[in-house]
């Protein structure tokens, strides 16, 4: 009996321990049988989505005990895609990229030795580093099984561990895309601003080149980051279906760190796709036809959703005053009108009370706005300045409310203000005329000093702003030339919203890729002297 008493616990320990050891060995064997890329896929899923390999959310606790679903507290949430962290409010989020974790941390914050795989796994599970220093309470602890832990550690090891292509010791290479058939006045206006901005930047007027070689050691972190900016023109030709190959060839000849500004005649989609595939940031292209229906948009930062935004604003405005009915949309044979018409048709799925008819407008077609058919609630004219000349004015009430697009009309739309009879509205994502002068003052002075004529306010304004944003981003990434980090720091770019010239409001935020979120709807029939420049309403769809 006493022998049994003595042996039973030993037996139990042996059996239980054996099971554990066997399952551990089995677990290790399963992990070791995975390829590096399989492990990284698992790690990425944990890092970005907060999910285990089988898709279930990782279990985690924050503030020392508040349960938080792993999908709500992903690594990416705070440490961002690059793993370089950042700051929010009074919280500093430390970098967790490979070089940061697997080397000792000194000087800043808490010192600690380099993590090993074991000490990192412990830290993630316990919420404290190997020195016993407790993490900030907003850093959760994670209940990660061995497989996912191995995957996450493999992912962290390679995360932002080497400079992205397009950067040398002296230069940072950047390109701007110019599509075929772009009005030379537009492309020249864009290039003049970009080239001059780059030239100024490279002139080293603040002794950047001298400081890089022999500046004070305590500013080394920023002095060493200095690079001259090299601008490459990527001029495309032929049909859009061939652009992908052309872009790949340009990239093969000279990899670039990012694309800046750019202009094409047509949809931005081929360049968008190229940037996602090659993981190249594209900052603020001059386009009204961005890609908006993609699930994957990390790399392109747009000014707005362009004509898609206008279509959404228009429908929200119309739905506020009409209970439903027939809408006719007119568009010309250019790519932008057709794009807008498609965008409206797509947005209309949320408004089943309206029935939409399309009418292609050509110089030879019957272009009276009335068609003798059933009365409509609205007529939408997706027309540019030339096309609108075809319309037979004046418009009457039979047409219902009439909507015009400010992006398509282009230029100074103030000439339309107060000129049109009937209920005519302008969808206007840009500044009101009375704000325009003030908002463009900085750019006008900059151009004047460089003897560049101020001929294309919109494209010159947007290009200048894009170059400023690039400068802001590159300044903040310092010597950490990781492309994802450039976009991560621009998520914190809200202070740059103040310098917007074309748009009344730009707003930056984590993962936000369309900076202007709304547009005003201007009632064009109101008397100019009766403060008609007040927008009727600002709509953020």
């Amino acid at each position, binding site marked *: 009996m006493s022998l049994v008493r003595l042996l039973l616990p030993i037996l139990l320990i042996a059996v239980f321990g054996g099971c554990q050891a066997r399952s551990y060995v089995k677990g290790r064997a399963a992990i070791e049988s995975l390829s590096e890329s399989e492990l990284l896929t698992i790690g990425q899923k944990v890092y970005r989505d907060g999910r285990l390999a089988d898709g279930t959310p990782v*279990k985690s606790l924050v503030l020392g005990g508040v349960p*938080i679903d792993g999908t709500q507290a992903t690594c990416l949430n705070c440490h961002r895609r690059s793993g370089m962290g950042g700051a929010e409010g009074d919280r500093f989020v430390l970098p967790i990229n490979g070089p940061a974790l697997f080397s000792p941390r000194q000087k800043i914050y808490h010192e600690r030795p380099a993590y090993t795989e074991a000490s990192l796994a412990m830290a993630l599970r316990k919420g404290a580093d190997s020195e016993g220093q*407790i993490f900030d309470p907003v850093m959760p602890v994670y209940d990660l099984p061995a497989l996912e832990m191995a995957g996450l550690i493999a992912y962290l090891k390679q995360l932002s561990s080497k400079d992205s292509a397009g950067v040398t010791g002296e230069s940072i290479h950047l390109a701007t895309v110019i599509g075929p058939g772009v009005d030379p006045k537009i492309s020249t206006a864009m290039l003049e601003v970009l080239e001059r901005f780059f030239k100024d930047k490279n002139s080293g007027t603040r002794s950047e080149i001298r400081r890089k070689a022999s500046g004070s050691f305590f500013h080394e972190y920023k002095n060493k980051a200095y690079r001259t900016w090299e601008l490459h023109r990527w001029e495309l030709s032929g049909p859009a279906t061939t652009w992908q190959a052309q872009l790949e060839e340009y990239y093969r000849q000279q990899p670039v760190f990012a694309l800046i500004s750019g202009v094409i005649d047509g949809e931005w989609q081929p360049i968008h796709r190229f940037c996602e595939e090659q993981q190249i940031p594209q900052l603020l292209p001059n386009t009204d036809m961005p890609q908006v229906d993609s699930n994957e948009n990390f790399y392109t930062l747009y000014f707005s959703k362009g004509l898609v935004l206008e279509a959404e604003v228009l429908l929200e405005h119309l739905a506020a005053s009409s209970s439903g009915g027939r809408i006719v949309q007119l568009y010309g044979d250019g790519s932008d009108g057709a794009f807008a018409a498609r965008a409206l048709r797509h947005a209309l799925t949320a408004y089943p009370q309206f029935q939409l008819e399309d009418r292609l407008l050509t110089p030879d077609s019957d272009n009276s706005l009335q068609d003798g058919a059933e009365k409509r609630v609205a007529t939408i004219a997706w027309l540019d300045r030339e096309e609108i000349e075809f319309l037979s004015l004046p418009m009457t009430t039979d047409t219902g409310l009439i909507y015009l697009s400010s992006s398509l009309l282009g230029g100074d739309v103030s000439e339309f203000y107060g000129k049109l009879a009937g209920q005519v509205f302008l969808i206007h994502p840009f500044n009101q005329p009375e704000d325009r002068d003030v908002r463009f003052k900085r750019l006008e002075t900059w151009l004047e000093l460089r003897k560049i004529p101020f001929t294309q306010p919109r494209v010159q304004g947007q290009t200048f702003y894009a170059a400023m944003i690039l400068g802001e981003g590159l300044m903040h990434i310092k010597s950490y030339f990781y492309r994802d980090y450039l976009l991560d720091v621009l998520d*914190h770019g809200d202070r740059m919203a103040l310098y917007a010239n074309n748009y009344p409001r730009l707003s930056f*935020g*984590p993962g936000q890729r369309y900076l202007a979120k709304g547009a005003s709807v201007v009632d064009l029939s109101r008397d100019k002297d009766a403060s008609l420049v007040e927008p009727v309403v600002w709509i953020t769809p």
Partner: protein
Amino acid sequence: MIVLRYSAMILLSILLSGCMHHGGDHAAHQAMLERPQSYTRSMANYQIPDATLIDQDGSRLPLPQLLKSSEPYALNFIFTSCTTICPVMSATFFQVQQELGAGSHELQMISISIDPEYDTPSTLKKYAQKYGAGTNWRFLTGDAATIAEVQQSLAGYVSDKMNHRPFTLIKVPNEEKWLRVDGLATGAELVAEYRRMAGQ
């Protein structure tokens, strides 16, 4: 209470970490015990602006009407694309909900977006679902100027949303002042603060 809380934290850490043992454990637990309270409390008077906000279902709600209700409520400011603080604050509100019992309408909870341009009602609705918000937890947005006015009147205005700081306001009927909880309190702590306010 504090001892209980930390005991619970330690227990949960141990449970989460399984049966692993390491030299750093003791130091980690010691440091956790020594951690100062993660929030400060104060009483404050606020003037509610005559503003109308929009909830996640698109309903327009006059703020004075909402905030002068006879029901107690807790209010915080968040934005849905926030990376660090708001997910924690929202998980905390969810925990408050759980602490009070599923379906409880004892305490109204209000989260006001400080990024109204991005946080449209439909975006807030998705966010509410993501954080398991019940019927007593409402998310509000509005036009940019109105939101700024509300932030200013509740001493929560920041010019750049990325500089926002976490705080929660608790108001109970028959008490003129608000309890302001600056910092990141847990759901259990918020419930305790509310109960203390309400004299329960």
